């Protein structure tokens, strides 16, 4: 008993040493392992884009470059990619504009209904996608049946219903990210501008807007990636239209063409390059 007490008096307690070790290495080791885990399926996708398979791209059959030479070779692959890009850009544009205006109203103004508006913005994010998809499908089908009956039109599910749905679920995410940026602004900067006799409009365009812009750009990137990769809502409201995730999912039943791997991995590389360039430009600006 006494020897133990003496022993601990000479070196730090076990807890302290474990903590030291944890603080030193453990977190970083786990972090690297988790990052590898995140990338595992991306590597897999990349490797199997070179597979010289016969029927289905599951077993490794040898190396080939033919899928990279002809990325649009699989029927519908590139069409679906173009559709996804169009829907992504369009819904990003609209959702970013609408969401930014809402964020300004919520952060910068005091008015009746502010609390209710906050909740209205929050609830779509707390609603599972499948419920959003199911409810939108309901109004589109019911609405189109009635309109087509009254006016003899031929409205149906497709490009525009997907776009409307994507704008809807992107708005909340835009509001949240622009709001965060707006709230972290130092109000003294704007006060200083007004002390220097800048009018409200000049203050807004010369001070406020440039400071909020990174938040808006971030929100737009978020909206685009949410829209581009959405499958669940899209699968409900798409009708016969095919986006890239839907193309992959549908062709999965017959065996995914390696062109999907080529396109998926290329999007990864392009996005990574854009983000890294953005980071470098951002860092250069800071200096």
């Amino acid at each position: 008993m006494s020897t133990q007490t003496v022993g601990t008096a000479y070196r730090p307690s076990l807890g302290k040493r474990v903590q030291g070790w944890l603080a030193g290495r453990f977190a970083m080791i786990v972090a690297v392992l988790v990052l590898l885990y995140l990338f595992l399926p991306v590597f897999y996708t990349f490797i199997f884009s070179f597979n010289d398979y016969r029927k289905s791209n599951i077993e490794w059959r040898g190396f080939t470059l033919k899928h990279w030479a002809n990325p649009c070779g699989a029927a519908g692959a590139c069409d679906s990619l173009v559709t996804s890009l169009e829907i992504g850009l369009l819904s990003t544009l609209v959702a970013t504009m609408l969401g930014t205006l809402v964020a300004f109203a919520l952060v910068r103004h005091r008015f009746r209904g502010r609390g209710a508006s906050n909740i209205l913005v929050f609830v779509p994010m707390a609603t599972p996608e499948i419920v959003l998809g199911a409810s939108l499908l309901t109004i589109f089908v019911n609405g189109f049946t009635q309109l087509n009956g009254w006016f003899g039109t031929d409205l149906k599910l497709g490009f525009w219903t997907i776009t409307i749905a994507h704008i809807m679920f992107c708005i909340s995410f835009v509001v949240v990210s622009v709001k965060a940026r707006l709230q972290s602004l130092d109000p003294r900067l704007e006060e200083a501008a007004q002390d220097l006799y800048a009018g409200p409009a000049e203050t807004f365009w010369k001070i406020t807007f440039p400071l909020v812009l990174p938040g808006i750009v971030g929100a737009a990137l978020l909206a685009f990636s949410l829209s581009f990769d959405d499958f669940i809502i899209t699968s409900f409201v798409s009708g016969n239209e095919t986006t890239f995730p839907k193309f992959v999912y549908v062709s999965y039943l017959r065996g995914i063409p390696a062109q999907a791997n080529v396109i998926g991995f290329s999007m990864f590389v392009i996005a990574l390059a854009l983000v890294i360039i953005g980071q470098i430009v951002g860092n250069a600006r800071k200096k």
Partner: protein
Amino acid sequence: MSALAHMGGGGAPATAMPPKEPSGRSWLPYLLLLPGVLWLLVFFIYPLAQLFAVSLYSDYPDYPGYYYQDVNWHNYVRALTDFLPHFGRSMLYAGLATFFAFVLAYPLAYAMAFKAGKWRGIMMILVIAPFFTSFILRTIAWRQILADEGPVAWVLEHLHLLSFMPNGRITETWVAVVAGLTYNFLPFMVLPIYASLERADPRVIEAGGDLYANGFTTFRTVTLPMSMPGVIAGTLLTFIPAAGDYVNAELLGSDTGTKMVGNVIESQFFKVLGGYPIAAALSFSLMALILAMVFLYVRRYGTEELL
């Protein structure tokens, strides 16, 4: 996606109420709100109301697939009795995935915030980057990686661990579904936790370490509470989509025994003649359940920033 990081971070320290409108400009906030709020009212609230109406429809017994307007609560009784196991699985799988995502995400976020130094920016990009390969494509890759002849099964077999898996395999079991859910929503857990840790002062944690002299106590009493807004945002952003997901159960699970509520809703909508009101009742029950949990959770661990 990096914008997600803001969610856990919250706003500026204690932002007060915005100033009162100058007189004669009280219409301005409403003008700013109008387009966005209108869009949400027409394409979020109105569809939910419609879906609720449909969830109370009755069908004509002799004409399957045809319904009439009604106030038939029996759909809810059926949804919650016939498909109770699926509800249970959704909650259980989403809960497990949220737990595992937290266990994996916290050290990563911690390392990014305090240990990464100049690598911080790169690590941030690496967390976001897998998002850009379609999530369907990555989930299908997981199916191949976890397959019976795949690398993970091979490794587990040689470690004599495969027999501990349900049915002695990984693919087409709940293990694969939970693994897929954990994987797919992991970045949503990492980014908010990172954002809240990044704000924390490392000296406070050091002081905690000096005070408590025990790694776990320091973590529990100092580090974790400081990152709580991020943990709450992260768990919500993981649990909610996981509970409503059907893609992972479809691609990684089996035909029986691992289906979640999302799978039932999807198949009642598209594959079962006359399943429409049941699908609507299921959707509404799922949403009510999740919203109730979210509000209780947010109230319990309190964060105004989310609302």
